C-alpha cells in the first residue's frame, strides 16, 4: 500500500506523540500512584452497618491524627449522611484545616451515586456492593460543594452538602 511521504511524517510524529503521552499517563498511574479509585472492596448493600466505618456513630468527619482525617459517608437517594452534631441535627457542612490529608469512604445501600466535591480531585462513583474510597490532600482553602453527579432519581439535584477548607 502506498503512503505519501508527508503522510508518513504526519503519522509517525502522531504515533510518537501518542506513545509519549501514554508513557506519561502510565508513569503517573503506576509510579506516582495516581490511579483513579479502584479498590474492589465489597460490602453487602443490605447490611452496610456490618462494616464499622458505616455505623451511624462513625459517620462524618473524624480526626485520627495530626493533620489526618477520615470522612465516612452513606449516600442514599437523596441524601449524604455525614452523621449528626451534638444537638442531634444532621451535619451538612464539614470543616477541614488546609493541608490535611483526608480519606473519604463512601457506600450506598440503594442506587448508584456520584460522590463529587466540586473543584477538587474527589470524584468517584458509588455503587451498591462496593466501598468507594480516596485519600486526598486538601491544598486549597475555600468552600466546596459536595454533590451527587450520577443520576439517582427525581431528587438527584437536591443531594448536597458543603466542605470548608480553612
Amino acid at each position, binding site marked *: 500500500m502506498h503512503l505519501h511521504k508527508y503522510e508518513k511524517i504526519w503519522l509517525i510524529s502522531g504515533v510518537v506523540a501518542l506513545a509519549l503521552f501514554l508513557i506519561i499517563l502510565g508513569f503517573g498511574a503506576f509510579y506516582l500512584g495516581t490511579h483513579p479509585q479502584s479498590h474492589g472492596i465489597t460490602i453487602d448493600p443490605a447490611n452496610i452497618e456490618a462494616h464499622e466505618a458505616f455505623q451511624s456513630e462513625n459517620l462524618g468527619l473524624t480526626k485520627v491524627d495530626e493533620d489526618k482525617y477520615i470522612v465516612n459517608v452513606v449516600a442514599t437517594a437523596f441524601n449524604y449522611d455525614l452523621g449528626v452534631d451534638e444537638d442531634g441535627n444532621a451535619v451538612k457542612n464539614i470543616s477541614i484545616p488546609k493541608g490535611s490529608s483526608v480519606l473519604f469512604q463512601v457506600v450506598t445501600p440503594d442506587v448508584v451515586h456520584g460522590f463529587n466535591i466540586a473543584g477538587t480531585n474527589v470524584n468517584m462513583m458509588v455503587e451498591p456492593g462496593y466501598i468507594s474510597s480516596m485519600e486526598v490532600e486538601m491544598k486549597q482553602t475555600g468552600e466546596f*460543594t459536595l454533590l451527587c453527579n450520577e443520576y439517582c432519581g427525581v431528587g438527584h439535584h437536591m443531594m448536597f452538602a458543603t466542605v470548608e477548607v480553612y
Partner: protein
Amino acid sequence: MEIPKIGVFEENARLPLTIGKKEANLYLSFIYVAFISLFIGGLMGLLQVLVRSGSFTLPWGIGYYQILTLHGVVLALVLTTFFIIGFQYALMGKTVGISDKQRKVSWLAFWVMTVGTAITAATILVGKASVLYTFYAPLKAHPLFYIGLALVIVGSWIAGFVNWRQLYLWKKAHPGEKSPLLAFMVNINMIMWFIASLGVAVSVLIQFIPWSLGYAETINVLVSRTLFWYFGHPLVYFWLLPAYMAWYAIIPKIIGGKVFSDSLARLSFVLFLFFSIPVGFHHQLTEPGIDPTWKFIQVVLTFMVVIPSLMTAFSMFATFEITGRKKGFGGLFGWLRHLPWKDVRFLAPFVGMLAFIPGGAGGIINASHQMNTLVHNTIWVTGHFHLTVGTTVILTFFGITYWLIPHLTGRTLTKEVNRLGIIQTFVWTIGMTIMSGAMHIQGLLGAPRRSSYSEYGGTEQAVQWGAYQMAQAIGGTILFLGIILMVYIFIKLAFFSPKGEEEFPIAEEEENAPPTPMWLENWKLWVAITIALILFAYTIPFIDIIQNSPPGSPPFDWPIGNS
C-alpha cells in the same frame, strides 16, 4: 437471430446503480423517523436548558428527568440509528443493489425498530421509565422500556444481516473484484455494531427484563454497567463511521475531486473496527470494582483510534488541496479558496470536521485514566458529546440530507433551500459554540451533568455555575431554532421541491491510483482480530468482577417516582 439474454445488463451493471421507487420508500421511511425524532428530542433539549436557567418550571407535573430520558433515548439511540440505517441502505442500494427479497426483509427491520421505539417512548412519556438512556441498575424502569429497546436492537441486526447478504451476493457475482468502497465501509460498521450491541442485548435480555418482571430478585450492578459500556463506546463510533463514509467517499465528489486513497480509507475503517470495542472501561474509570491495571490497558487500546483519526484528517485535507491545485489554485493556502463554500452539501460537513478538532481533543482528556477524575460526570462531558455527535456527526448527516432526500423523492435541491441550509449551518454553529462552550467551562468549574436546576444550598460555586446555565439556555434556544429550520428544509426537500434529478455523489478513484491490495478484503481475519482483542481486554477483568461480586441489588423504582 440471437435471443437476448435476460439479466445480462444487470450482471454487468457498473456503479452507480439506479435506486427504484420501492427501494427509495424503504430508505426514506428510516429517515422520516429520524427527523421526527430530531424534532421531539430537540424540543426536550430546549425544555432542559430552560429549566436549568432557573427561570422556567415544567407544566403539568412533567419531570425534568423524564424529558432528559426522552432527549437521550430519542436523539442518541433513535435519531442516529434510524438515520444511519436508512443512509447505509441507500449506499448499499446504490453500490451493490438490493433484491426484492432483501427489501422485504428490510421492511421487517424497519417495523421491528419502529414498534420498539414506540413502546420505549410511550413508557417514558407516561413517566414510568425516567432512568436516562444509560438505564443504570438498580434503578428500575417499567419492563416495557427494556423490551422496546431490545426490539430496536434486534431490528437493527436484521438490517445488518441484509447488508452483509447484499455484499456477499455482489461479491459472488463479481469474483476477484474488490467490493465497492462504500459497501465495504457499511459492512464494517454493521459488523462493529453487531458485535458491540451483543453486550447490551445480553444485559437487557438476561439481566434487566427478568429482573424488572420480578423473575430474578437481584441484579449484578457492575456486570450490567460493564456490558453497557462494552456497547456504549462502540455506539459512538457507530454514529461516527457513517459520517466518515461521507467524508471519504462523497465529499470528494461534491468538491470535484477524487478519493484520496481507496486502500487507506479501508485500512482506517478496519482499524476502527479493531479499536472501537475493547475500550469500554474508559467510561468506568472512577468505579470502585474494576482493577486499575485493566482500566489502564483499555485506556491504551482506546488511544489506538488516534491512528485512524490522524489518517482521516490527513486524507480530508489532502483531498481538498489536491483538488484545489488541479483546478489551478496555487500558493500555500490558495487552494482553500476554491472549496465550494456556498454549497451546503460541502459546508455543513466541513463545519462538522472542524468541530471534531476540539471534540477529539476533549475526548483525549476524558479517556486519560487519571485526568478523567477531573471531568467525570461533570457537564464538560455533555459539552464534549454535543460537539462530537451533536455537531460533527449531525452536521454531516444534515449535509447528506440535502442531496439524499431529493435524490430519493425525485426532486432537486434548489438554490433557495441551499441558502436556507447555509443559514442553518451558521445557526447551528453559533448555538453550539455558545452552549457547548459554556458546558465545557462550567464542567471544569465542577458542575455536574444530568442534573435539574439546583442552587446546592446557595454555595458560591453554584452561583458561579448559574451564569453558564443561562448561556446554555441561550445557546440551546438558538439550536432549537436551527432544528425548526432543518425540519422545514427536510419537509421542503421531501414533499415540495421541484421535480427533477438530484445527484447521488460518489467519488471515484484517480485513474492512475495504485491498486488496492486484496488482503484488505480478508473479512474473516478482521473479525477474528476484533474478537481476539475483545477477549484480551475483557476476559480477565470480567472473571474478576464476577468472582468478587458483592450481593446483588433488588430493583429500585421509587427513586424515579414509581412505586
